[in-house]
């Protein structure tokens, strides 16, 4: 009789409580230690890039909502921005501010949701409900301006769809105040927790070189000590007008990624506040070329445009051949790239860490599978 422990292949997912959607992770475990891991994706593939080739430029905007459905505003934005770059459109001032406001509010909502679900993965149930409550305040604001709570379809090529309703800016200010207070409470509830720190500090370490080589972006990259944020280093829209910091940490572990995201919420709130102050009271919200939705025909050319989404660098590679439909749209989805590192990161970890590490990368499956 052999006495060694049997190796076991464990299929986490496609249906599993903490894979955040239909994600499958084929892991081999000895006892509870992972000896190999293979992420398998594609269960939610809808062929967005193929669909884009058959639709008019503006018709594809709602499809971008469904990539990272937790942070749809930035997806909307980056697609519109890439078309605008090809066309060389000038965006009205007020529209730029509305874009910034909605994008940053959405980033806060996305980080809040991440915080809740991540803590749920860690086994704490209350943060999930707290996070949802506050996220709801933001969704209310976004609902007021766009008419939808998750799939906004708010941006248009050349501007935005709707102007802010009466008193919206004031309500946003109130929301920011409220969330800042609450976040502080939650932060103290969780961050200092002994059990949480023991589970997250030193776990899932990604070195600076590794993070860059694996193409990580967003908070995951910044937590490994790379001070890079597209909003600051390659300012798009009007981000150069705001005063905010890029939170970074050197540790590169789960806890660092957690801290970076929490700090980013504060920074985003700062931007929202500044935007609320600076926004011009009235003005055009869309370029006149963008108003004729089905008539948009960018000149021939190709462009790669990238922006900082809540999960990392979202990019659009757009090829136009002067037709009504885009010739090729490639979406660089941050989650798709970030989740790749799992196969290296998980080896030698216990199963309990798997959930923590996977959670800390903040992956949305709609985006991974496109």
């Amino acid at each position, binding site marked *: 009789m052999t006495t060694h422990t049997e190796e076991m292949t464990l299929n986490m997912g496609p249906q599993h409580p903490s894979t955040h959607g239909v994600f499958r992770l084929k892991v081999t475990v000895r006892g509870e230690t992972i000896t190999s891991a293979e992420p398998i994706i*594609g269960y939610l*593939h809808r062929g967005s890039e193929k669909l884009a080739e058959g639709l008019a430029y503006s018709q594809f905007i709602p499809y971008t909502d469904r990539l990272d459905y937790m942070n749809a505003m930035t997806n909307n934005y980056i697609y519109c921005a890439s078309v605008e*770059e090809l066309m060389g459109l000038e965006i009205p001032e007020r529209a730029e501010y509305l874009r910034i406001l909605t994008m940053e509010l959405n980033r806060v909502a996305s980080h809040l949701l991440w915080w809740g679900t991540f803590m749920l993965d860690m086994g704490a149930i209350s943060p999930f409900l707290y996070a949802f409550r506050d996220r709801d305040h933001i969704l209310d604001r976004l609902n007021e301006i766009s008419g939808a709570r998750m799939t906004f379809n708010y941006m248009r090529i050349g501007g935005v769809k709707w102007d802010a309703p009466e008193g919206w800016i004031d309500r946003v200010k109130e929301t920011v105040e409220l969330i800042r207070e609450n976040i502080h409470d939650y932060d103290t509830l969780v961050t200092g927790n002994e059990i949480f720190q023991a589970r997250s500090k030193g776990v899932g370490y990604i070195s600076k070189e590794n993070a*860059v*080589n694996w193409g990580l972006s967003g908070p995951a990259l910044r937590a490994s000590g790379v001070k890079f944020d597209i909003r600051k280093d390659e300012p798009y829209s009007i981000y150069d007008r705001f005063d905010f910091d890029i939170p970074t940490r050197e540790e590169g572990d789960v806890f660092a990624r957690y801290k970076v995201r929490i700090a980013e919420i504060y920074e985003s709130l700062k931007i929202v506040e500044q935007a609320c102050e600076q926004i011009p009271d009235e003005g055009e919200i869309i370029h006149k070329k963008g108003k004729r939705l089905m008539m948009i025909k960018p000149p021939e050319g*190709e462009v*790669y445009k*990238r922006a900082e989404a809540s999960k990392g660098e979202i990019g659009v590679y757009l090829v136009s051949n002067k037709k009504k439909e885009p*010739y090729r749209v490639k979406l660089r989805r941050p989650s798709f790239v970030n989740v790749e590192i799992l196969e290296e990161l998980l080896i030698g970890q216990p199963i309990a860490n798997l959930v923590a590490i996977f959670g800390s990368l903040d992956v949305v499956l709609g985006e991974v*599978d496109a």
Partner: protein
Amino acid sequence: MSEHLLNLVKETIQNQHGEEAVEEADMNFEKPFITIWSEHWTHSLAETLRDGDEFRFDFLSCLTGVDYEEHMEVVYNFYSFPHDQYLYLKVKTPRTSPSVISVQPLWKTANWHEREAYDLLGINFSGHPNLKRILLQDEWEGHPLRKDYVTDKKAMGLE
């Protein structure tokens, strides 16, 4: 600044593979934009781009394939953290049996990007350790993002 980089990259490629290696070199929205043929796209060139002192393109931001009907192209979007510079690199490959070297050993992030390009466009990345379909199921026929792909509407329940 960027034009300087463009010339630098151009020279490097010409030094390695001869004058006619560079198919096209231009600025595209203020960023250097270089097109070469796939036989000139080698590991040593890629290594120079990654480790060369003037380049240091340590971050492969995006890798994608485009079907241009008369040929295929793989587009690399490089970014360099140390120098804060940017490069489009387009690698042309014939449409029949398209094949490009895999840069997975140099940029690990290329692993899934290349698998995706293979899956959707059918470009073969030679040297890739695990080149199989990633988004579509393994038994899928054809590569949907090719321009001559015929959508089987009946099978998809559209008709």
